[in-house]
């Protein structure tokens, strides 16, 4: 594992699933220390892109490079660098929060896995629920536990896919507070996929706009406003509804 700032590059990335092109020749370089908002209408390829960046899928064409090496060359060692939080839990609901975090800490080969798990449960405000099975947690608590799991091994690349999905207003606020508290302490690359830019901009400083598997626009918040991305998102939602 290297301590150099992470470099993540996508070159002509194409992904086909069941013969359908989900991503179409996507090229982009993610810079260390930057937080990206990945937005676009439903079905634009956000989740597929994050799964590819997490190493859970392989590109159909093109390549993804981490520190100038294709992900395939990293093998399972890439798991030390990356973390993906999604609206899926990626955990065991019948085990307790502590057991889950300890298990994943062990898989990451962390020293003192139980201590690290307890430290993070306290950090996300779940210390008093450490010994409760995850299935008894509210949706908001599950998401905060997922945040703890995501930063367990101090990854260089943090990928969040619709983390606010299914949360009520209070749950959203709590998760935002947790993320605000945690993110400044994590260097590296942070990519947050959401179709709700208002929530995303509270955490991000650059954006990428995807539509039908193609990168349509990218830049900072000023560019986001000038490019009228919100209007484009609304139009897509309208077309979807009517």
């Amino acid at each position, binding site marked *: 594992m290297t301590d150099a700032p992470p470099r993540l590059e996508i070159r002509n990335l194409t992904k086909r699933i069941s013969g359908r092109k989900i991503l179409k020749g996507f090229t982009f370089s993610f810079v260390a220390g930057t937080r990206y908002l990945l937005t676009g209408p439903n079905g634009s390829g956000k989740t597929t892109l994050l799964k590819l960046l997490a190493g*859970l899928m392989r590109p159909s064409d093109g390549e993804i490079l981490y520190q100038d090496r294709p992900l395939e060359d990293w093998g399972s060692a890439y798991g030390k660098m990356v973390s993906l939080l999604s609206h899926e839990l990626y955990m065991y609901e019948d085990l307790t929060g502590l057991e889950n975090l300890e298990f994943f800490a062990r*898989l990451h080969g962390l020293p003192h896995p139980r201590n690290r798990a307890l430290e993070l449960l306290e950090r996300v405000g779940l210390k008093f629920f450490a010994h409760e099975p995850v299935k008894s947690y509210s949706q908001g608590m599950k998401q905060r536990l997922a945040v703890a*799991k995501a930063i367990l091994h101090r990854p260089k690349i943090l990928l969040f896919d619709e983390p606010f999905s299914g949360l009520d207003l209070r749950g959203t606020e709590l998760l935002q507070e947790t993320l605000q508290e945690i993110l400044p302490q994590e260097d590296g690359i942070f990519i947050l996929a959401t179709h709700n830019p208002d929530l995303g901009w509270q955490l991000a400083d650059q954006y990428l706009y995807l539509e039908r598997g193609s990168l349509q626009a990218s830049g900072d918040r000023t560019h986001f406003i000038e490019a009228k991305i919100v209007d484009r998102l609304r139009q897509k939602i309208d077309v979807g509804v009517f």
Partner: protein
Amino acid sequence: MSFLRGIWEIFRKDFLFELETGETLSLLLVFALSVLFLFNFSFDLSRAEVQKFFPGFFWLTVLFTSVLGFSKAIEIERRGHAIQGILMTPIPRESIYLGKVFSSFVFLLLVELILAPLFVVFFGLKMTGAQFLQLLFPLILGTLGLAAIGTFMALICQVSPKGWLLFSLGYFPLAVPTLIASTKLFQGIFQAVGGPAAPWLRFLGVIDTVELVVAVLLFEYLMEE
């Protein structure tokens, strides 16, 4: 993380899960005992017939029970997409498969160790301590073979929309050589028929190895999507 450590961590988690829920062992045991009762009360067999049919009944019960065990083992990973969480860790991919094989093997073997003496009692057979020890060889090798194929086929269910069709088409035919060899070994122990045990034990050892190696090689490919 080392290959063996990875296998241990997956097994440890499944064991912990079983301690918390008790789901797998209770399901397998209740099912296996129900089949045993059904066999016992459905047939009115003479002592000679019992000795002849007992090995087949036993391994048929193990086959049915194993299907429940594999589906349960994979269901645990499906809930909450937990297996994707494991795939994002630096654990060697083959450790995930072999860890699941080891868990299924241990749970199924535990059920068989309870089931075998009960079969003997219910069917009115006599079993010496030496015979029970001899049973351990086919039980261990036969169960390992079933766990190797069954875990792999159950993992296919995880990634394919027609998974359970593939499971039934793959698991049952591939399990036949293991079941024949294990049944022959049981016959040898209880009836002193079925020829010498060594060739069948070697056969089981070879097919277990082949199944495990092929499944490990295919597992990485299987998990890509």
